[in-house]
């Protein structure tokens, strides 16, 4: 059980006129291998919750346990904790500082007092993990890289500590669609090969739906629910009450189902949607074949049209306007 919180509450500037309840009795369990998405409006307590996981924000009331470490005592093995939980903040590229990429990525391991030859290896490993050419970038200044590359270097700087749990606060904010896709691809790769448990805060439902196996909905400092995406995005009441947008894929599925296509409304991933559409079309053809072979022939010809739907699904949000 890597992360357990129980009745976790937090107040900013307590006992002052500016006191603000940021967390209110949050009880949450994140299991090994989870890809947890955290959603909620600005000020709903997402970042405060995430800050607790590596003791950047200390426990005021309630309990937090991370990978068997109780975070309540004042004195903690911060190095152990912070190398267990890698935290990637919003716009992580703004934290780059050192003269070369190599040294910047090695900052974490150096603080952990790891021997130099192992640091070099970790730096190579994490730069390759984020898809950068190690020999090509290691001696360059982080400030002369492009925006997307900088973000990768910053991510590598966290990965170089070899965390078991990765916490990401809006990792795709401010990137173009391609950069977003690349970063998400990279996060999936990290989860697969390096760091099995990932927690991602995001405002983008498409990203959340496509990657997470559990979604925590926060509102006004409280945890509303933790549900798998297939369930959350079919709960119209929850979506409406907390102003949560549906992912494009689910909207397309709903629009098609409204028009009579026989597909489930709970689809959240592009591939599933495409498969469901193909299956539904095939089913329609099979049903039609015995009665009117002529029309069936026509329908068979229609199958390639699913490619168009697939394209539409790939393009995501913009295209689904036509389905509304």
């Amino acid at each position, binding site marked *: 059980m890597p992360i357990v919180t129980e009745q976790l509450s937090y107040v900013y500037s307590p006992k002052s006129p500016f006191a603000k309840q940021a967390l209110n009795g949050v009880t949450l369990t994140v299991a090994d291998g989870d890809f947890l998405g955290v959603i909620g409006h600005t000020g709903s307590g997402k970042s405060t919750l995430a800050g607790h996981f590596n003791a950047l924000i200390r426990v005021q009331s309630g309990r937090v346990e991370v990978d068997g470490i109780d975070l309540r005592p004042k004195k903690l093995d911060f190095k152990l904790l*912070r190398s267990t939980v890698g935290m990637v903040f919003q716009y*992580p590229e*703004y*934290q780059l*500082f050192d003269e070369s990429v190599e040294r910047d990525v090695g900052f974490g391991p150096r*603080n952990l007092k790891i021997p130099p030859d192992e640091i070099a290896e970790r730096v190579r490993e994490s730069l390759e993990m984020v898809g950068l050419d190690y020999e090509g970038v290691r001696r360059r200044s982080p400030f002369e890289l492009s925006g997307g590359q900088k973000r990768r270097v910053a991510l590598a700087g966290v990965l170089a*500590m070899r965390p078991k749990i990765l916490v990401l606060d809006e990792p795709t904010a401010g990137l173009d669609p391609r950069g977003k896709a690349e970063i998400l691809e990279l996060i999936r790769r990290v989860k697969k090969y390096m760091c099995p448990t990932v927690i991602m805060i995001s405002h983008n439902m498409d990203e959340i739906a496509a990657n997470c196996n559990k979604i925590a909905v926060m509102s006004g400092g409280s945890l509303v629910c933790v549900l798998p995406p297939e369930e959350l995005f079919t709960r119209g009441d929850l979506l409406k009450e907390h102003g949560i947008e549906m992912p494009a894929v689910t909207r397309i599925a709903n629009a098609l189902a409204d028009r009579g296509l026989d597909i489930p409304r709970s689809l959240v991933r592009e591939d599933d949607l495409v498969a469901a559409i193909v299956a539904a079309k095939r089913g329609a053809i099979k049903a039609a074949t015995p009665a009117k072979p002529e029309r069936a022939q026509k329908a068979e010809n229609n199958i390639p049209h699913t490619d168009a739907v697939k394209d539409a699904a790939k393009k995501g949000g913009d295209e689904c306007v036509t389905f509304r």
Partner: protein
Amino acid sequence: MRDVSIGQYYQTDSVIHRLDPRVKLVLAVAYIVMIFFIVSFIGYALGFLFILILVLLSRVPPLQVLRSLRMILFLIIFTFVLTVLFYRGGGDDLLFGWQFIKIYKTALINASKMALRIMLLVLGPSVLTLTTTPVELTDALERLLWPLAKIKLPVHELAIIMSIALRLIPTLVEETDKIISAQKARCAEFDSGNIFKRAKALLPVLIPLFVSSFRRADELAFAMDSRCYRGAVGRTRMKVMRLALRDLFAVLGFCAVFFAVLLLTYNWFGFGFIPLLTPGGY
């Protein structure tokens, strides 16, 4: 980092908040002059009464005002102790003597007065900054220094530099907090080792902070340029400051207090009750 309280404006609506910032600024300067005319304890009492009335009128919680004293508490104690210990004036009013430590009554009285004076000096301007936004203050300063623009002093530019700087302080503090958190997440330590180590440990915070300040400055310059900012020439104001009746009352009220202070000190008219209020010249 949250203790940087230059922008300590307390948002509420009160008659003091609504006063013209120019009037407040001029009165604050006059108030500081007034403090130096106070010589007796009853005069200090009058000063504190004045501040108390201001605070009550301004609807700022008194604790918030006292917070400004907390920062100079050390200074007050330090000056008090030094004044008491190193007083070498009188000889007949020794209260306590042990070896080289001699404590005189006059020293105690002088030191108390000095402490009271420092407190008043801090409280007045903090009422000003609690009830006036930094932007209002720089605007007021710009308007008051207007005559200097006639002798080619770039008053407007200085004012805008100041208001931009003030505006950016909270932003930079927030930015600093974020960067510190990010570096702490990479196991950076800021509070261990000797002074050189600590200074070096600040580099991972300072460099990103500088970089982002330059970026911000660049973006701001572009934004100002794109909105045709050309400096002071031909520029009109969104908020035109106009004197209201309440400003007149404020000035009159303050003049009354100032006059009372002067009267307590100099007793021009030879009132019999004033010496009674200041027994023994204290």
